[in-house]
């Protein structure tokens, strides 16, 4: 569901930047073609479709159960209430779960990006021998179904004493995410203009300087996208955290959400409230970082 959110927000920001450029060109040309209007209308319709589940969530999150029974999920709350959110907050000890999710997702996003950049610098720009095979081997972490990884991982982490700790999840997802990152970045770096690299080397730059001063600024946009994706993907992970995090004080937000679904029973309004609560942090993260990282991209381009 939150992936849908992202694409809407992405669409939204794409639209706003589009309209900015449109304004600029408006002054210059006074032309906006039918195609532009059509695209705009399609984008708005698309955004509404994407937003639909969130609207439903928001409507039900503030309903009383009586209200929900009487009118079903597709109506506005007649007696808006915060009780669903409050009861989930208390029942799940939400701040702890939020802290765990934030900690895990942030560390994974940072480490995942660092590892991806270093790997791809060697594989894409350094052109290590057999790099294609190395990338394939790394990609196995992503290609394997998570179900197949579960038992070996469980045995390994139990032996080193990390079972039932957040560090197990951090390690596993740093590897899984950076596998994807390495694959993507090394193909980007594979097409990096050799002339720039040679120029830098002639100027006496070491490899470390080339990475920091030349490669990083130019690939900043790809890296920023990876960073946001790694964060959101890790945030939403369910199966592996479910297998590894048993104690209440190490569990993440999606696991807390799952406790609301009983064996045969569920509380629809509390579930809606809790789901809404759990996607807010990812939306906030996305909005904040999208802007910051966009600035980063611009800064890189000017240099």
């Amino acid at each position, binding site marked *: 569901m939150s992936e849908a959110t992202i694409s809407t927000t992405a669409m939204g920001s794409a639209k706003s930047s589009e309209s900015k450029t449109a304004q600029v060109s408006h002054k210059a040309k006074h032309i906006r073609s039918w195609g532009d209007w059509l695209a705009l209308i399609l984008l708005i319709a698309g955004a509404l479709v994407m937003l639909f589940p969130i609207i439903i969530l928001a409507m039900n999150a503030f309903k009383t*159960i*009586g209200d*929900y*029974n*009487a009118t*079903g999920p597709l109506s506005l709350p007649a007696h808006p209430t915060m009780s669903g959110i409050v009861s989930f907050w208390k*029942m799940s000890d939400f701040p702890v779960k939020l802290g765990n999710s934030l900690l895990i997702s942030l560390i994974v996003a940072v480490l995942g990006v660092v590892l991806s950049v270093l790997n791809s610098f060697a594989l894409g720009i350094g052109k290590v021998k057999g790099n294609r095979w190395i990338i394939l081997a790394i990609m196995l972490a992503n290609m394997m179904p998570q179900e197949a990884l579960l038992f070996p991982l*469980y045995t390994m982490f*139990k032996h*080193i*004493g*990390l*079972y*039932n*700790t957040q*560090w197990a999840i951090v390690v596993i997802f740093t590897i899984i995410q950076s596998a994807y990152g390495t694959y993507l970045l090394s193909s980007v770096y594979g097409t990096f203009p050799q002339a720039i690299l040679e120029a830098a080397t002639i100027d006496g730059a070491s490899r*470390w300087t080339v990475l920091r001063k030349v490669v990083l600024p130019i690939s900043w946009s790809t890296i920023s996208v990876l960073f946001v994706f790694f964060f959101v993907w890790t945030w939403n992970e369910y199966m592996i955290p*479910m*297998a590894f995090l*048993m*104690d*209440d004080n190490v569990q993440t937000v999606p*696991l807390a959400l*799952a*406790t609301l*679904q*009983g*064996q*045969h*029973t*569920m*509380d*629809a309004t509390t579930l809606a409230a809790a789901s809404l609560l759990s996607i807010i942090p990812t939306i906030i993260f996305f909005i904040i970082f999208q802007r910051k990282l966009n600035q980063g991209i611009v800064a890189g381009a000017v240099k």
Partner: protein
Amino acid sequence: MKIRKIAAAALAAVLSLTALSACGSNNAQDDAHPQSISFWYYDLPTAAQTEAWKRAADQFTQQTGVKVKFEVKSFTQIAQNSSQFLDSNQAPDIMESNRGNGSAGMLSSMELLSDLKPYVKKYGWDKKITKADASIAKYDDMGIMSGTKWVGLPNYAEYQRVYYNKTMFDKYGIKIPTTMAEFEQACQEFKSHGITPIAADAQEYGVMWLWWSLVGTKADKRFIDDWQMYRHDVNWNAEPLTYATNTINDWVKKGYISRSATGLKAEDTTNSFIKGNEYPIYQTGTWNQSRFIAQIKNFDWTAAALPGTKMLQGCTGNLLTIPTKSHHKDLAAKLLNNVLSVENQDGIGNAGGIPLAADMSKINNVKNREMIREYSQYSQKGDLSYYPDYPASNLTDDISAQFQELVNGTETPKQVLDALHKSYDTGVVDMGFKD
């Protein structure tokens, strides 16, 4: 150079973390006076049994000074991952476990749950929990129920009941049915008024449960034993199976069950029934009774097992187990004994659940009293059919998938039974119960 230093530092940090947590997980020792014991469960906090467990825990803390740390897990987490965490040092002291061969039975055959026999003797639990109620708590070495090992403590029950919207019945002058003929006639009359009588979901287990209730109107104890305990090969041409499958097909054809049931989940049908003007008849688990009492405001309702039931679908609820790796077994058993106290059992009954050892005169709500009576009528004779998916863990999904096809009209009753036959046989072999 710098990068090497950073890498070295990071490596050192990770290693020290590993070392720290490795120490941390080894210090659990047997302890007669711990600060607290842990209790993992997955029922909703409003469920009758959950409330009783919390009350029992409060009394336990007063008696012993030891706190009880309740942690709620998701049903899937306990169902899918318990064999892993029960085998680690993180095992809780008490765990709620789904009953049946595929869940509690399997965990016990892996020796992950302690045999409670010494505590059963010490506290006399076998005097309170008898016959059919006890057989679901006892498993043999293979993990098949009705064995001799006490794997967990049953402390409440649940079964499938048909709930009738009396106000709707009265409106059309239809009598609440007491026989299967009357039941079908009532359905026909509602249909003639343009009302789909039976609320059933085919996306989850609604139709499957209805089918098994129909099986229970024709089955005898021998048939159920063959199905659940693998005593003999199941006779797939026996009347209970053919009658039930054909009847479901019939009801769908006549419009008693809507074909759109394939798009419904249990929450949808429960919700529609509570609304009060859509479906007059709804078969569901008694876990919904307290919700009906609390949330149905605009009509009068009544309930009973499906007319003509010989073997009642249901059994004692989830078991409270003590994992083998718990370090506070004696304390855990003491807490479990509190759950069986008459006072807490009455509490379950008054909260809309079905207690196993309550004092009936203390149950205030008439509807709850009727429900408890109805259950014990069957359980005291041992006439329970349990649930159809107990023999093997693949059946839960396979049976409901087959009934989706039947409701959808894409398979005939014969095809459904053939497919079920196949998944039953492979499932039982996969579980290691048969070659």
